[in-house]
């Protein structure tokens, strides 16, 4: 974290009804030029945070600072923040060019300057020839590009995006993810992006704030979030994850010794488990190997094999958990297990994290 964060949420709380807090003591710093994603299930408070930043909701407690200034008392139309809405919110009675021109007109720019900026913004999203169209005459993906161009056309330094790709089909969504990422890289604007789609968050972000229950569970870069989740919620929410329950019975260096079902002792990296009591072990499917070559070896019964081309997704029963998944690379087809067979699987203790139960 740098010394001069561009956006600061300082002990922000939000309640709609005066009783339950939707956002509980939120502290967040966003650097200039950063692409930060607020990721979480619906109802986790992420959209509320974005709306508070845009000025459409007011914080019940705490302060939001933008460029060093508190903005709690500034109305939305004086904040100068660009925003892409979930349903695009293009003005249906205006052409695309008029839509983009609107924020420039508000700022009193001359016609010539407006036209130049509008064309530049349209070219940026590869929609240069669509200035004369009306929103209703375009596809969802095209409308989405226009919405992005409109949020950027008035040179806002901060752009908020509220699940902007939610309404698009999968292929278009992926294409737009890269496009938005490239626009961010080229312009150097600060982007705060809200989504519930974790793959979208992993693809696009510099940093991801994982929201649940009105709190940030973990704020980290995508790779850190995936490989080193701080708690059981993050491990479950980001990517595919296997969990095993056990009791902490001792420690050895950085590892916890955990007794799992059937008295089997496993070693796992101590992350968020207590000094004793129950813990939840988290292992990514791709870190589990067939055979006994790694530190922790257990017996597993093969329940299901799904052929996925490059790998075979294998569902096993491990220590009473019948939803345990591992990925067997296709190259080892010669000794592929069969359904019903009991095999040995193993993993390294640094790939297994002992988290809160």
């Amino acid at each position, binding site marked *: 974290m740098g010394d001069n964060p561009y956006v600061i949420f300082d002990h922000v709380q939000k309640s709609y009804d005066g009783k339950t807090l939707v956002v509980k003591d939120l502290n967040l710093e966003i650097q200039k030029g950063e692409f930060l994603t607020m990721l979480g299930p619906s109802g986790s408070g992420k959209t509320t945070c974005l709306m508070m930043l845009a000025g*459409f909701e007011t914080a019940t407690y705490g302060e939001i600072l933008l460029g060093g200034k508190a903005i709690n008392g500034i109305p*939305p*139309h004086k904040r100068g923040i*660009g925003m892409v809405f979930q349903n695009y*919110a293009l003005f*249906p009675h205006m052409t695309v060019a008029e839509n983009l021109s*609107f924020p420039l007109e*508000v700022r009193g720019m001359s016609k010539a300057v407006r036209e130049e900026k509008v064309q530049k913004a349209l070219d940026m999203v590869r929609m240069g020839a669509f200035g004369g169209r009306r929103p*209703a005459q375009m596809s969802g993906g095209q409308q989405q590009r226009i919405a992005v161009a409109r949020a950027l056309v008035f040179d806002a330094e901060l752009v908020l995006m509220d699940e902007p790709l939610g309404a698009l089909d999968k292929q278009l969504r992926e294409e737009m993810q890269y496009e938005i990422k490239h626009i961010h890289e080229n312009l150097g604007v600060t982007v705060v992006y809200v989504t519930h789609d974790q793959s979208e968050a992993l693809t696009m972000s510099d940093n991801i704030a994982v929201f649940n229950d009105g709190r940030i569970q973990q704020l980290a870069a995508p790779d850190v979030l995936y490989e080193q989740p701080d708690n059981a919620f993050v491990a479950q929410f980001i990517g595919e994850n296997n969990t095993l329950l056990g009791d902490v019975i001792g420690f050895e260096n950085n590892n916890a010794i955990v007794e799992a079902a059937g008295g089997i002792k496993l070693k796992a990296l101590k992350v968020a488990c207590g000094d004793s009591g129950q813990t939840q072990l988290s292992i990514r499917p791709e870190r589990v190997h067939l055979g006994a070559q790694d530190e922790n070896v257990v017996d597993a019964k093969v329940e299901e094999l799904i052929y996925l081309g490059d790998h075979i997704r294998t569902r096993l029963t491990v220590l009473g958990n019948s939803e345990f998944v591992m990925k067997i690379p296709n190259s080892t087809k010669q000794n592929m297990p069969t359904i019903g067979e009991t095999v040995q699987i193993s993993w390294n203790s640094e790939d297994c994290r002992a988290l809160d139960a």
Partner: protein
Amino acid sequence: MALPIYASTGQKIWYYTFRVICGLVFFYLIAPIFVIIPLSFNSGDYFTYTPEMLALKKEAFSLQHYYSAFSDEWRIPLINSFKIAIPATIFSVTLGTLAAIGLTQSHVPFKKAIMAILISPMIVPLVVSGYGMTLFYAPLGNWFVNSFGMDETSVRFLRVIFAHTVLGIPFVIITVTATLASFDNSLTRAAANMGAGPVRTFFKIQMPLILPGMISGGLFAFITSFDEVVVVLFLGAAETQTLPWQMFNGLREQISLTILAVATLLIVFSVLLLVTLEFLRRRSERLRGVEMVQ
């Protein structure tokens, strides 16, 4: 809906009966209006179809009642009707639109009760509200005359205009509320986000999109004022005689066929007004692409 091939005899009978019923309903609604139109070309002075008319004799028809329809006796009430209906429509549309916007905000309390009060002029019998308005506006008019030095005639006009505004507002509220139901509130947020203040947002974003509702409501308000006779009879004076007032008096005092000529002109005018505005409204909706965006 065409009759399917597999229709039973019963279904076939009902299919044609239904069409006959629909035709009868239209006939029942429209015949009383149309029956006066040929009568207005009567060359005599009787409210009946003469044997000569039925025989389509040329001398039985004339435009004489139309000539008298443009005499001062009718022209002044016509001008008065416009003098009252146009400002009343403008006030109704302005106030009704503001009320509709207010009533669709989530934070406004007692919305249903407020709505019921604002709509009530449409439901309360006109004789009742007309009498109430007489009692209410008489001292108010005097107060205007005494405090602002307004002349009596303008005050009388103002009284009728205000009364007709009240009668027109419910129509505007209903039509504008209906268009606002499909208005996407994120559009006003988007406008604010781009730096537009509330006033600019209203005139540039919200108003163009709810304009069809405002036009429909305004049309109803105009027709209401233009056709209204009860309140005018209660509140009006010699100076404020409107077209319906004059027709009512004409029917009561001297039965003249000029009334039928005026009525025919009014029918033509109303139909033209409705058709034109409906055409304009559809055209603007289509241009704005409103119906395609949800």
